[in-house]
C-alpha cells in the first residue's frame, strides 16, 4: 500500500473540503472493505484517505415524509436487521457474506465499490482493452456480463443496486460546491471508455444517503451464488410488484451481476402486467427477463441462473 495522509473529519463540510478534483487525490474510507483491497493492489493510490465514520449525520435509518432515509454509514448488518426497510432490500443485505463483511461494509460502500472483474483487479483496466479491443470476449469470461454490447463486460458488483432500482430509490451526492440527488437507476452507468467510471459519482463527492420512497409494493430479492463463503453472486433478481387483489398492475424486475449496471428487465415487467403470480407466470417472466441476453464464450449458464432468479424472486414476493 502506498503511503497516504489521513484525515478524520467530524462534519460533512469538513469531509468534502478534504476531497480533490481527481480520483487520485483522495479516497473515502467508510467500511474500508473495498478501499483497502484496491489500495493494497495499487489500483487506487490516493494521496489522502478521508475517514467519514465520525460524521454523525451519515448514520442511521430514519423515516421521514418522503420515505426512508438510509445513511451511507449504515452497515450491511444493520440493514439486514432493519424492520423499516423494504423486504427486497433486507434480503439483498442478508445475502451478502460474510458476517465480518456485513459488520464492516456499509450501504454507501456497496453502491460505490469497484467491479470485481478479474481483469480490472489484476490491473488491466476497467475495460481490459488491448490494442483497442477488450480481452474479455475471447478470454476468461465465466463471471462476466450476459447483457450489453461492450466495451464494458464487467458486472456491477452492487448487491443493493437492483433492489434500490425496483424501489425507485435515489442517492444523495454531496460535494463542497453543493449536493444533488440522483435516481439509483441512473447512478450506475456502463462506461464507454477507459477514462470513465461505472457510476456518476465524481471524485469530489461523497454519497451521503439513500432515499427509498414509501411503498406498498410486494418485494423480494433472490440471489444465486457458487458457494456460501465470501463470494460475489453469479446472478440475482429483485422485484417490486404493485398489486390489485392478486393481479399485478405494475412490476419492476431488475437483475444484478449480469451487466455493467443493474439490468432492468422491461420485457418481464410487461409480461407480468394483469397476471397473478403463479409458477407458470413467474417462469414466463423469467424467460422474458433474459430475452436479448448475449452470453460470452464461457457464461451461457448465467442466462439460466438469471431466469431462475427472476422466477424465485417473484414467487418469494407473493408468498405471505
Amino acid at each position, binding site marked *: 500500500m502506498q503511503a497516504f495522509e489521513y484525515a478524520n473529519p467530524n462534519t460533512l463540510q*469538513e469531509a468534502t473540503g478534504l476531497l480533490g478534483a481527481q480520483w487520485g487525490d483522495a479516497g473515502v474510507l467508510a467500511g474500508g472493505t473495498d478501499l483497502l483491497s484496491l*489500495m493494497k493492489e495499487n489500483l487506487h493510490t490516493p494521496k489522502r484517505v478521508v475517514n467519514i465514520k465520525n460524521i454523525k449525520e451519515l448514520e442511521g435509518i430514519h423515516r421521514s415524509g418522503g420515505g426512508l432515509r438510509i445513511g451511507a454509514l449504515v452497515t450491511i448488518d444493520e440493514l439486514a436487521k432493519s424492520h423499516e426497510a423494504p423486504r427486497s432490500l433486507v434480503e439483498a443485505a442478508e445475502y451478502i457474506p460474510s458476517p465480518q463483511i456485513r459488520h464492516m461494509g456499509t450501504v454507501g460502500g456497496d453502491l460505490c465499490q469497484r467491479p470485481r472483474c478479474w481483469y480490472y483487479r489484476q490491473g488491466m483496466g476497467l475495460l481490459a482493452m488491448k490494442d483497442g479491443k477488450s480481452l474479455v470476449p475471447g478470454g476468461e469470461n465465466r463471471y462476466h456480463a450476459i447483457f450489453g454490447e461492450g466495451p464494458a463486460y464487467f458486472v456491477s458488483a452492487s448487491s443493493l443496486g437492483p433492489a434500490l432500482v425496483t424501489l425507485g430509490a435515489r442517492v444523495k451526492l454531496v460535494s463542497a460546491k453543493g449536493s444533488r440527488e440522483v435516481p439509483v437507476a441512473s447512478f450506475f452507468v456502463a462506461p464507454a471508455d477507459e477514462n470513465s467510471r461505472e457510476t456518476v459519482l465524481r471524485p469530489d463527492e461523497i454519497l451521503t444517503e439513500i432515499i427509498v420512497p414509501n411503498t406498498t409494493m410486494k418485494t423480494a430479492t433472490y440471489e444465486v451464488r457458487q458457494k456460501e463463503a465470501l463470494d460475489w453472486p453469479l446472478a440475482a433478481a429483485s422485484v417490486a410488484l404493485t398489486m390489485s387483489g392478486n393481479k399485478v398492475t405494475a412490476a419492476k424486475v431488475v437483475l444484478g451481476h449480469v451487466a455493467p449496471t443493474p439490468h432492468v428487465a422491461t420485457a418481464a415487467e410487461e409480461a407480468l402486467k394483469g397476471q397473478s403470480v403463479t409458477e407458470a407466470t413467474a417462469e414466463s417472466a423469467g424467460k422474458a427477463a433474459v430475452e436479448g441476453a448475449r452470453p460470452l464464450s464461457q457464461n451461457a449458464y448465467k442466462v439460466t441462473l438469471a431466469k431462475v432468479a427472476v422466477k424465485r424472486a417473484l414467487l418469494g414476493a407473493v408468498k405471505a
Partner: protein
Amino acid sequence: MSSKKDPELPVQPKSGFSRRGFIRGVGIGSGVLGTTGLLPKEAAAAPGAAVVGPGPVAMTLTINGKPVNLTAEPRVTLLDAMRNYLDLTGAKRVCDRGTCGACTVLINGKSVYSCTTLAIDAQGKKIETIEGLPVNNPVSAAFVNHDGQQCGYCTPGFVMAAHGFLREHPNPTEADVEHGLCGNLCRCGTYMGVRKAVVEAAKGMKGGSNG
C-alpha cells in the same frame, strides 16, 4: 520514510535484539506528525479537520481492555500493528484481503477482518483478540474436544468469529454455525469439527458470560 514498501515492520531497527523484542521496544516512539501534506494547497484541509501522516503517527489502541501505544504510518493495518508492533501474534495474516478470516478480531463486540481495518481507524474502539481469552474458554476447549483444528493456523480467527457469533446466536444449530462462520476458511477442512465445537460451546456457556 519510503513510500515504496509497506511498513509491515517498524523502520530503523535498534541493534542486538530479536525482531519481536525490538518491535515491543518501539512502543511509544516520537510521534512524528506529517508536516508536509501530499495534496496541493487548493485541496488543503478544511478548518477543524485534523490531517496526519503520511509519516508515522502516535496512536493508542484499546486491546483486550488495556490501552497500548504505538507509532505507525496511517497505512498500517490493525493486523500488522498487532503482529509486528505489539507482539500480539494470535491473529494471522493469510490472504490479507478480507477473505479468509484468519485475522478475525472483535471490534466493539462484532467480528471484523483486522487485515482490512487501518490501525489508526481502530482507535477509541474496544478491540478483542484471542490473547484476551482465558486459555480454557468454552470455545477453545470445545475446539480441542471436537478436533476443530488440524494445522491450527485458522483457529484463532475461527475462535474469535465463533465468540462474536455466539453473542448474537446463543442457541445455534450446526446449520446456523455453518452460515454464521462463513467468513472463515480452513484449508485442512476441519469444518465438521468446528460446527460441533461451536454448538457444544454454546451449551457450555448457558447462563454465563461467553467472554
